[in-house]
């Protein structure tokens, strides 16, 4: 019987104590998700900065190993928080950041636009572990369209959607990772989903026509 893998916090403590193998294990565990998160959050325009941001995020983890304390958040949440800060810094420097407060104030009280419910009826059911044939091709095209739709989302909503739907963080963890309140995180996620549904419904509907 194989021993259960140590938790992220235990590995981080071990690395802080000088265990390099613990860091390698942490890296292997989170490298793909973090790299994907950074790349999707940066978008196509800044995709060239993905490696830099990704490396800088991990180096911050390395340098902060002595000071790291769980403090109510998991290592994964902290890792994505570091990456999010670096991306926001990069977006600010590039002038692409949109004030989330202005965005939220403009849309406050308004119900996000919802596409027609009929549009979603043409979507196939969520595939299993390994879709085949046309179904796989459909989901690939849907994925490409979703990435395009993500490009249209403001970074705060984008990060909320990615953290919640791609990386599997709960709303609490999303709020903690984004260093915002729970309701704010929830609102951001709701707006993000509404826009994505509209965007994706408009795209997918003709497919099945």
């Amino acid at each position, binding site marked *: 019987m194989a021993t259960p893998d140590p938790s992220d916090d235990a590995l981080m403590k071990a*690395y*802080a*104590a*000088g*265990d*390099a193998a613990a*860091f*390698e294990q942490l*890296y292997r565990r989170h*490298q*793909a998700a973090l*790299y*994907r998160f950074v*790349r*999707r959050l940066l978008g196509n325009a800044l995709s060239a900065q993905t*490696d830099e941001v*990704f*490396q800088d995020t*991990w*180096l911050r983890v*390395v*340098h902060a*190993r*002595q000071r790291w304390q769980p403090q109510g958040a998991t290592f994964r949440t902290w890792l994505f928080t570091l990456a999010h800060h670096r991306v926001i810094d990069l977006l600010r420097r590039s002038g692409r950041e949109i004030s989330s407060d202005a965005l939220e104030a403009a849309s406050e009280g308004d119900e996000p636009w919802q596409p027609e*419910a009929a549009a*979603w*009826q043409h*979507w196939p059911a*969520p*595939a299993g572990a390994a*879709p085949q044939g046309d179904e*796989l091709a459909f*989901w*690939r095209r*849907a*994925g*490409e*369209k*979703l*990435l395009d739709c993500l490009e249209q989302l403001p970074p705060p909503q984008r990060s909320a959607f990615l953290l919640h*739907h*791609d990386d599997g963080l709960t709303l609490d963890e999303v709020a903690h990772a984004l260093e915002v309140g729970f309701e704010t995180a929830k609102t951001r996620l709701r707006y993000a*989903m509404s826009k*994505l*549904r509209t965007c*994706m419904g408009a795209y997918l509907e003709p497919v099945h026509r």
Partner: protein
Amino acid sequence: MNDAERDAWLREALRHAPDSGALPPQDVSEAILAQARAAARNAQPLPAKAAPGATKNLLLAFWDWLARPPIAAGFASVMAATLVGVMWWDRPLDETLPRRPEVVSERAMAPAPSEAAAPAQGAMAPANNEESTSGTVGAAPGPPMRPDVGNATGALADSAPARRQAPSSRSAGARDGKLATAPAGEERKRADAGAKENVERADRTAAAPTPFPSSEDRRAGLARQPSVPAAKKDAAGLATPPSDAPVPADAAAGKPVAAEPATAPATPPATAKLRSQAEMVPAPTRRRSDDEQARASASNKVEMDVAKSAPAAVAPPPAAPTPAPSPELALRRGAFGEREKQASAFGASPAASAAPARSELAAAQREGAVRAAPLTGVLGDIATAPARWSRWDASGNAVALDAGWRDWLTELDAAAAGRWRQVRTVGADSERDGTATLRLVAAGRPPVVVRIDATTVRIDGPATGERWQATLPPPVAERLRASAGRLPP
């Protein structure tokens, strides 16, 4: 279809996105892992590296603490004191310390010609005269201690209580006429005990900082004076004859010993003992600077000389009276001069500026004391060469000085002893009725005129331009005038 189902579709689409399998480049991963391993290797020596940093921080904190004004001022004071101490480190400290009795005793062992020739000089006001006068006559089983020994020791003890005590003890001794007959062994034990106590006190007070001149001045002073304070010089000048010498009653009673022939040589042990006792100056005196001590000693000595010379005039004229001062007086004068030199050697203090004036005053007083008996010299000269002397009679003719007038002069000299004082010569006094006048003339000498007017005796001309005056008790003056009236005019 609800949102949950649509969100499931969105997640599925996201999972099949083209970048879903994207991984960081291999080089990036290698770089990250390499830096992570390097950091892990350095994780162990981190505490060791923290030590220099901690030390540095500690030093910086200490420096910040030291930079505060009160701390900095205190530190600067300590540094200045340390610097002064280091600069003074190579200087001989024993210059400022009181001399050990052994050292002085060793010096006393070395025969000094002047000291050996003048054994008995210091019949000064003793602080411990009470000891010498409190004993009973003839009770000394051992060699009696000479009174001048105690006098010398007491004179050097120039503390205020000792000075206050000296006249009363002297007068008490004179009244009682007792001899200093305390047993010599007991006396010496007492003296030794006092000496030990004084040595301990001096040692204790020697640790206290004493005002000292600069090193050059001190060295110059040491070159001029062999590092013996004036008090020690006094003690050296007060060398005494052997302790087994007979003690005259007058001396034991506190009377001056000026008339005593100073022929007994000073024995080194006794001298050393004396010096040791003289060294036992009380602590307050030790704390004073040397120049003050020298001046105080000189002044004290002058006072003693003046006080002693007056009783000496009362004493009958010696067998060979001479106007020149006695050898003792000369030696004392020499010692006084030496002490004056010593006192002037330390002229750095402001108080030393008054030393010359005080010196002149003391010299004048001393000279006055020497000549405080103006008739003594004249009588001595008459005794040695009576043929030279004559007197003017009432008609102004020179007649031989007969024995009656000589006896009258001797009686007058004895009656006026200690009362003479020199006065300014204003002019010739007119003789009033009842004035007895004797005009003496001698070949090669100015005339001497002796007058008794009421109770005042005046003598003009024992030296050129001098006038001496003494006030006699009325019965004595009356008796002298009456006897002069019975003599041939």
